[in-house]
């Protein structure tokens, strides 16, 4: 088990800054996810940790020792790629045994370890098959076994699930998580799928334009974060403009918005005239009658039935707001219906700029 530290890590390709001054500390045994849209620099960061890309600037430390100038084959990491990169001309056994052969293990030892690794990923008896004879999920497991069989210090996973179908993706992410827990191996996982990141990680670093925008547990990232980028990238957030009406005595400010007036806690203590506010679609209610004075008139524009909840797109004046209603609470509005929208004051976030 190893902890990983990135210090001022920067990578420039030509004129393009792919990774911009990234500082991260990944504790040993942690399942750490780099989450971001494509082009955010997350894969490049991972490749620098693996040694496949040399940083333009900065240091990478494993357990406090710098490895920045070390070639990949001296770093002792295991890596799984998005396309699995299984060698098509080798059997499953030979694929998994590659790292052991390089390390000059004895024949018996190699056999034993390969069998053990394949058992770990539930692929016993598949030794003699070739990659093209396996399903996508099985190929993924072989890639995982090949990375794990050499007992790497760190496991690096670069979008490993994005080539699988939706159901298998959820199954495999549970398995990867279980495997990681039982081995206790420090794992760095790269994905653009925020749901996957929330489900699988101990900690998440959200990246955008080569920079780390925020780090935290999945809960912190989803619930507490007030960064505009994260609010819109992780899940959906409705944004509304608010004007300060008055400052209340208890550290709160009364803000006027198109959706009503709200008394919000001013956590940052800034004194601005206008604020950008955000709230998640599940923290608004739609009602037929006006139940509270703060509720505003709204018109249903689009209705999307998504199974466990219904997503309504409503118009309030000329602002579009998305509201999620759990299926069991859904009165079943139709497109064109006039309703009232009412926000949950406790879940309105003042967006940081």
């Amino acid at each position, binding site marked *: 088990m190893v902890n990983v530290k990135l210090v001022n890590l920067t990578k420039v*390709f030509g004129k*393009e800054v*792919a990774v911009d001054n990234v500082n991260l500390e990944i504790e040993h045994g942690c399942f750490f996810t780099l989450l971001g849209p*494509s*082009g*955010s620099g997350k*894969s*490049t960061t991972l*490749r620098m940790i*693996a*040694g*496949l*890309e*040399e940083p333009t600037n900065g240091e990478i430390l494993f357990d406090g020792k710098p490895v920045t*100038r070390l*070639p*990949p*084959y*001296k*770093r*002792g*990491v*295991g*890596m799984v*790629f998005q*396309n699995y*990169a299984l*060698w*098509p*001309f*080798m059997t499953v056994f030979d694929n998994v045994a*590659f*790292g052991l052969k*390089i*390390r000059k293990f004895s024949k018996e030892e190699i056999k034993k370890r390969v069998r053990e690794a394949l058992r770990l990923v539930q692929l016993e008896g598949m030794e003699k098959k070739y990659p093209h004879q396996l399903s996508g999920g099985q190929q993924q497991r072989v890639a995982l076994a*090949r*990375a794990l069989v*050499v007992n790497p210090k760190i496991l*690096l996973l670069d979008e490993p699930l994005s080539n699988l179908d939706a159901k298998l993706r959820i199954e495999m992410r549970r398995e990867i998580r279980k495997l990681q827990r039982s081995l206790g191996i420090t794992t760095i996982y790269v994905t653009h799928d925020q749901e996957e990141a929330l489900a699988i990680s101990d900690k998440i670093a959200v990246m955008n334009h080569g920079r780390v925008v925020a780090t935290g547990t999945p809960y912190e990232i989803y619930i507490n974060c007030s960064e505009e980028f994260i609010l819109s990238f992780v899940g959906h957030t409705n944004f509304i403009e608010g004007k300060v009406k008055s400052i209340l005595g208890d550290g709160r400010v009364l803000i006027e918005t198109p959706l009503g007036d709200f008394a919000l806690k001013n956590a940052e203590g800034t004194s601005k005239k206008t604020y950008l506010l955000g709230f998640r679609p599940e923290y608004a209610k739609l009602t037929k009658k006006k139940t509270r004075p703060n509720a505003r008139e709204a018109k249903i524009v689009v209705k999307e039935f998504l199974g466990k909840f219904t997503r309504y797109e409503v118009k309030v004046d000329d602002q579009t707001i998305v509201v999620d209603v759990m299926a069991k609470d859904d009165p079943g509005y139709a497109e064109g219906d006039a309703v009232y929208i009412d926000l949950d004051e406790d879940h309105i976030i003042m967006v940081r700029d």
Partner: protein
Amino acid sequence: MRLKGTSIFPPIFPVNKLISHIIVPISLITIFSIFIVYPILVVIAGVFIVNGKFTLANLLTITYDPFISTIIINTLIMGGLVTLITLILAVPYTYILNRYDIPFKSFFLLITLLPFISPPYVGGLGYINMLGRQGVISLSLLRLRLIDKPLEIMYAITPIINPMTGARIAEIHWGLILICVLTYFPLMALTFLSALQNVDESLEEEAYILGSKPMTTFFKITLKSAMPGLISGIMLVFISFVDEIGIPLIVGYRNVMAVAAYEAIEESSFYYTPRGYVLSLLMITIGLLVLFLGRKYISLSRYVSVVKGAARYRKIVRIRGIKRILVMSFMILMSILLSIGAIGVIIAAFAERWYLTPLPTKVGLKNFGVVFDEYFTLFRNSIIYSITSMIIGIIMSALISYIMVRMKISYSSVLDYILTLPLVVPGVVIGIGTWAIWRGTPLDPFLNPITIIALVIAFRKLPYAFRGIHASTLQIPPEFEEVGLTLGASRIKTLFKIMLPALAPALVAGGLLAFIAAMTELSSTLVLSATKSAGSLTVGIFLALTDIRHGPTVASAIAMIIIVTCLIVSYLANLFAKKTIGGLRLF
């Protein structure tokens, strides 16, 4: 996301980068250039520099020497005609093959491949056997009293007269055009076929939905989308004609550039001859023009996309009634024309007695016996040249492809240009330049012909090995090696344990293609083999034709040996090509 073109060779050790990015690629390309670029430069210099002084006198002969100007006009006009006729025949043939529900499709496809695997002018030998004055068809028609004079189509010449002066400015040799059209037909058909297969079907469907008629759709959508393939076909055919030396020699016509240049240099006993050099310069100019104008279309790296969509599903159009009869007649007529050459070669190869009768009066294996008795050296030479081409082709292509694909070198487009040169610069020119360079050295073609010919052929045929190997290298994901690196293998180890096995089938297939290309090479061998003992089997065909004891039957037997060898090798090449990553197809 990973950025495109990222190198897996981080410059962790600057020394390594110097070797891998500069020293190795530059030395490879230097070796290549010695045998391809240097001869071209020597020929160009030979035109402008005489006795150490710069002069335009040689170049100006174009303006007053009627022989040179006739030859230029002949070559351009006939090259244009050949290209045009090939185009007019190949486009419908390919389109029908690709889109209509006609029977015997694989047969019609196979027929187009036939001239492809036999040396081009060998077909010419067959056409003479069939259509010549004393050919099968001419003599049959005479027997049947359908004609009273032998067929002259293979020798008919139409002069082009300047109406102002009444002087003959050029001529059209129809036999030459006929054989060239039929020989180059596959080049056009196959490039157009892969382009057709890559046309997005939905584009055509969209046009139909919007009310476009089939003809309009064909010209406005299909043909336009397949244009790059068509242009590459046009250029290949035109360049092949400029380069052609075998077919004119077989029909006995000498007034085209390549032949005239060859004869000029031969008459001067392989020393400096202004006329040969000026003609060579012109051929280089045409080649370079094609290279720069058509760069987009004949780029070696483009080959990948041409190959990729080879097996795509395509909706087949049903045709009935009179249209079906017309289409089938056209296909049958074309396939007869395309196969006549091969049939002619086969009949003659087995003919033991054949004198002024439509068919041989005695058949047997005697001709092959003669070949093995008297032309065995040439057979041995051919094998030496082919194997050298295979080995050099594999090693050079593997190294250069790997460097071009995996390392971000700034001059990789320059490499691509240089490697394409042998496809556009005629072998005669390379041969003439090679004489000038190596006279009086240990590699003098008079003293040591086998070595220099083997090397020249090998580098001239390098593109045939290179394009398949390069395409395959592009298909291998960089992650293959990167996984190896993370698992503890050094770069050398990943190169040998991962990259080499991954590329192996492509290397073998590419090597075999270079083997075939070398086996069928004629022009530079003809120029460089000053003595009979250095020639290849292809040169042997001409030796046999001009030897009164042997003649066309023995020449045909030699041709058959070449064809059979190439058939076997191309079958093997295809077997390996199927195993390459990404399922590269060669034909």
